[in-house]
């Protein structure tokens, strides 16, 4: 089976302006370390994907970067021009609160119906404007959330698991959409995912987090496995890749770092 290796084109990614950076971020909760000297950087036009197991501190890191939570130590540096568009994890409107998509978009910024139509068009969810937020499918909710983030014309998108509640084929589509939005708007994107395989083709930098940064770097290999093609169709499959990287340590049952050379009994 031929494996084609390809480096994604990254026009001046390394020289682009840093939009947001966290340095030495450390946070404890109930005596347990949640973040341990975490450093991260997102540049304009760059997609940075944060991966890691459940409880790795991905959402906490994002909240600290957004200023929603204060770190015990470390600093967050934001460029003066930064305007954030945020898609939070776990989003549901309480059924007791009636809300249309149109009113929901209004909350980010008062905008005309034409503007709302345009942004819904951009995220591939046209004709939802008059719909009730309670009548949306998982994929539609994620697209509407994306639209709300875009209404503010952000230059930094922060997306916490933007494909949750979406079926597998739809997930690949959403990641492709995020890549297109980045191309069109030249914004930086910080993306959280726990899916190791799906995100990689649409990402420039990968940060593997497990309370501390285990490793970070460029995604390297693109897989064109026939089974992927069969599952997702050719276009989606071309967005698929896996991220080959090397760990210099593993994690014990409590998440503590164990050198790879240490003998383990399992």
């Amino acid at each position, binding site marked *: 089976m031929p494996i084609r290796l390809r480096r994604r084109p990254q026009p001046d990614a390394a020289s682009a302006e840093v939009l947001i950076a966290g340095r030495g971020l450390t946070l404890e909760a109930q005596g347990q370390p949640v973040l341990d000297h975490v450093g991260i950087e997102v540049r304009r036009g760059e997609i940075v994907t944060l991966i890691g197991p459940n409880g790795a501190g991905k959402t906490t890191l994002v909240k600290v970067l957004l200023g*929603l939570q204060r770190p015990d130590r470390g600093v967050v540096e934001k460029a003066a021009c930064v305007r954030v568009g945020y898609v*939070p994890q776990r989003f549901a*409107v309480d*059924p*007791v*609160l*009636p*809300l249309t998509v149109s009113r929901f978009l209004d*909350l980010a910024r008062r905008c005309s119906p034409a503007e709302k139509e345009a942004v819904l068009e951009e995220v591939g969810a046209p004709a939802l404007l008059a719909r*009730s937020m309670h009548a949306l499918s998982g994929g539609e909710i994620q697209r509407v959330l994306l639209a709300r983030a875009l209404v503010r014309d952000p230059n930094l998108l922060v997306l916490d698991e933007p494909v949750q509640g979406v079926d597998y084929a739809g997930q690949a589509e959403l990641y492709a959409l995020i890549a297109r939005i980045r191309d069109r708007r030249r914004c930086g994107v910080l993306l959280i995912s726990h899916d190791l395989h799906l995100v990689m083709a649409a990402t420039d930098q990968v940060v593997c987090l497990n309370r501390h940064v285990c490793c970070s770097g460029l995604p390297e290999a693109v897989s064109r496995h026939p089974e992927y093609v069969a599952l997702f169709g050719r276009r989606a499959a071309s967005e698929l890749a896996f991220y080959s990287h090397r760990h210099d340590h593993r994690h014990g049952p409590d998440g503590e770092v164990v050198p790879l050379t240490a003998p383990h009994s399992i």
Partner: protein
Amino acid sequence: MPILDDFIWRAVFAGLLIAAVSGPLGCFVVWRRMAYFGDTLAHSALMGVALGLVLGLSPNLGTLVACILLAVLLGLLEGQRRLPGDTLLGILAHSTLAIGIVAISTMTSMRVDLMGYLFGDILAVTKSDIAWMAGGGVGVLLVLALIWRPLLAITIHRDLAAAEGVPVFWTRQIFMLLIAVIIAGAMKVVGVLLITSLMIIPAAAARRFARTPEAMAAIASLVGVAAVGGGLWSSFRWDTPAGPTIVAAAAVLFTLSLIASPPSGAGSSSG
């Protein structure tokens, strides 16, 4: 206004005022799951009455001060982890109510109509009460209109709103103060034990007929107005206590809302 010389019209006027303002505010109480918070503030109002009498202030002012103080205290205590939120509210609600009753009962020098405070005494509303209510009501609606969008944003998703730059703490704090003001104003109408119902029952009845938050607020106001109208009429007709009759009328309207079929396109299952 000469019409206010008649105690019945004073009662109608006060009731409609409170009902109209309670509609939008009550919607937020329902959406933010703050019914118990409202109850706690209402219970503390009785301590405010006692406070007012002790300090020689008017009971209205005492109530307002007590409710505002408690609202600020609860706002600051939000996020504490020592006690579950509803336990804390329960402690404050019942201890302030108990202390209020004890304090009032020790004031032998004056006759205080405890039942009036507990269940309302809308027929004893004075012109100055109405001036208080009208001023407070208009003020509350104005402020609510100003914070409507940020308050709605933090109600739907706190972190999303905060990331978009909404001042979460102050928006919430101002909202709590609005509840405090409306509770102080509504005490005469339905009494401290029944005030919360005037906020949450019309809002709950309005839910199925609204597609937007604003529509739900407007419908809740109408339901509240209808409950006050129907309740006062029934109370005159059958000589029942006005406050409880108003609440009972609201309950009847809520029950009817469950039976009535909403106009097509409204409600949560549309689309």
